[in-house]
């Protein structure tokens, strides 16, 4: 169980963390989600001990570790750009934590083989990081962090430097790994899709503060404020009302509360179609329909349709 209370961190005049408190339940996979500059990486580094907070405490399993160096916190850290030890082989990289603790050779050999199997890098043990792909390097980074049996695993935008397909693969793979090992894990990401897909709980951060902490579904269905709602998914804003594109119903005839709009553009994204609409007063809207729905309505660019929300949200300050 990780507990961060009242964390404040400044870099010169810039306030990276403004009285942030976060709890991470044992065995869960929690995502810190937010845009660049939201403080999520800083918070992760404070938990790891790579940064010292100006105020606040960090506890791991009830113990106050705020003043402890990273070496003795028992955290595993995985870096966005891998931080691979270039001059060591894959094997020696993974074995590093054990080697410096002077574990017996037999133990190291067994543990490293196990981990290399786990991350599917067995055949590459004698290679150097320069000879690996980005995805392979990051799997190595993960194996390296896991080698010393950390109580907590921290990942700082681990898939940020990889291309889209590899990112998706590794995301799933990480989730499966977590389901097997149940290590308390915190992952920092700016990709809401990643957070929603992978995490049990998501902490949404913005400008050094926590906006909302909730499981992905609740975050999506019951966002605490405008920022969270727009960050975790696409949203239409009409004045004070927020409507998800898939909650926009399209009708060919006006019907009571419907509004008149014109179809500007149809964007076909595989199975879904994004319909870009514009109102008389120039306000734009986007609706998300399936292919069938679009065909059934025989939608075309320039066509007049009538819309109404099946669901809408208003935030009270």
């Amino acid at each position: 169980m990780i507990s961060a209370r009242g964390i404040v961190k400044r870099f010169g005049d810039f306030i990276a963390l403004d009285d942030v408190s976060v709890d991470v339940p044992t065995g869960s996979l929690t995502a810190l989600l937010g845009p660049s500059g939201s403080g999520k990486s800083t918070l992760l580094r404070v938990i790891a001990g790579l940064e010292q907070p100006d105020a606040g405490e960090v506890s791991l399993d009830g113990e106050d570790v705020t003043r402890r160096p990273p070496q003795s916190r028992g955290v595993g850290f995985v870096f966005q750009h891998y931080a691979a030890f270039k001059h060591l082989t894959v094997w020696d990289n993974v074995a590093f934590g054990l080697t410096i603790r002077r574990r017996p050779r037999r133990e190291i050999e067994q543990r490293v083989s196990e981990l290399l199997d786990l991350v599917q890098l067995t055949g590459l043990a004698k290679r150097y990081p320069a000879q690996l792909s980005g995805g392979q390097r990051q799997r190595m980074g993960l194996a390296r962090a896991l080698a010393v049996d950390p109580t907590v695993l921290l990942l700082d935008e681990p898939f940020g430097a990889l291309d889209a397909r590899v990112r998706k693969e590794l995301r799933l793979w990480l989730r499966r790994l977590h389901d097997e090992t149940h290590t308390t894990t915190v992952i920092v990401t700016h990709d809401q899709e990643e957070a929603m897909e992978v995490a049990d709980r998501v902490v949404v951060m913005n400008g050094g503060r926590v906006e909302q902490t909730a499981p992905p579904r609740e975050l999506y269905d019951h966002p605490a404020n405008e920022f969270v709602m727009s960050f975790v998914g696409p949203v239409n804003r009409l004045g004070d009302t927020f409507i998800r594109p898939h909650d926009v119903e399209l009708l060919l005839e006006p019907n009571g509360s419907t509004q008149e709009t014109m179809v500007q553009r149809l964007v076909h994204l595989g199975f879904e179609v994004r319909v870009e609409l514009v109102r008389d007063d120039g306000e734009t809207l986007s609706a998300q329909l399936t292919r069938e729905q679009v065909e059934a309505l025989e939608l075309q660019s320039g066509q007049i349709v009538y819309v109404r929300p099946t669901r809408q949200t208003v935030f009270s300050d």
Partner: protein
Amino acid sequence: MAANAEALSAAPAARRSLAPGLSIGLSTVYLSVIVLLPLAALGWKAHGWGAVSTPQATAALKLTLGLSLVVALVNAVAGTAIAWTLVRDRFAGQGLVNALVDLPFALPTIVAGLTLLALYGPKSPVGINAAFTRWGLLLALLFVTLPFVVRTVQPVLFELDRELEDAAASLGAGRFTTFLRIIFPSILPAVLSGAALAFARAVGEFGAVVLMSGNLPFKTEVVSVYVFGRLESGDSGGAAAASVVILLTSFGVLLAIGALRRWVTRHDR
């Protein structure tokens, strides 16, 4: 329209093709006349190989190579320390110290020798008289080779990814272990390059040592001074022979250091 475009591209092409010929041709001629021709004459006129195996010549060779290796080693350590202080530390006047490191590059070697002799020679105000000793030679050589390792290590240290040190810390490595296992291997190639440059410079140094050494054969006579001496005695053939020997020997050492450096960076390929 098409005709114009053709005319436009044809003329510059013709003019452009002169440029490579000009720069290659001129620079090759210049290099040949200035550098290669004299060196060819050196190789050709080197004779009196018997003179090279005299006890005096051998002593000069051994002394030079020995001193230069020691100098390379001392610089490897001191240069790295100084580079560290300039990159990782922070104190007032750091910029001045950084500029100072280049002083041996800018200062004439004879002046370097003279200043060392003034402070650490016969009229030394602190009572240290290193003139006519091997310590004096060492001092002079350390002076002129100071910048080499510092300047090769500095950029590498500067570019070093701090995340690597964070990673090592998160895996439990203390500061010393991190230095030994992570930082040092990363800067080792640069240290070797710098040490090689320092070695090469030390082998050939003349101006800084000529006053300090006193030319005592078997004691403080380095090869450059020995060659000069042969020349003064009119034995230019013998001087040339000794020059060729020291050139080949130091070339061999440099090749060895280069091979070591390549082996150390084998993981980068």
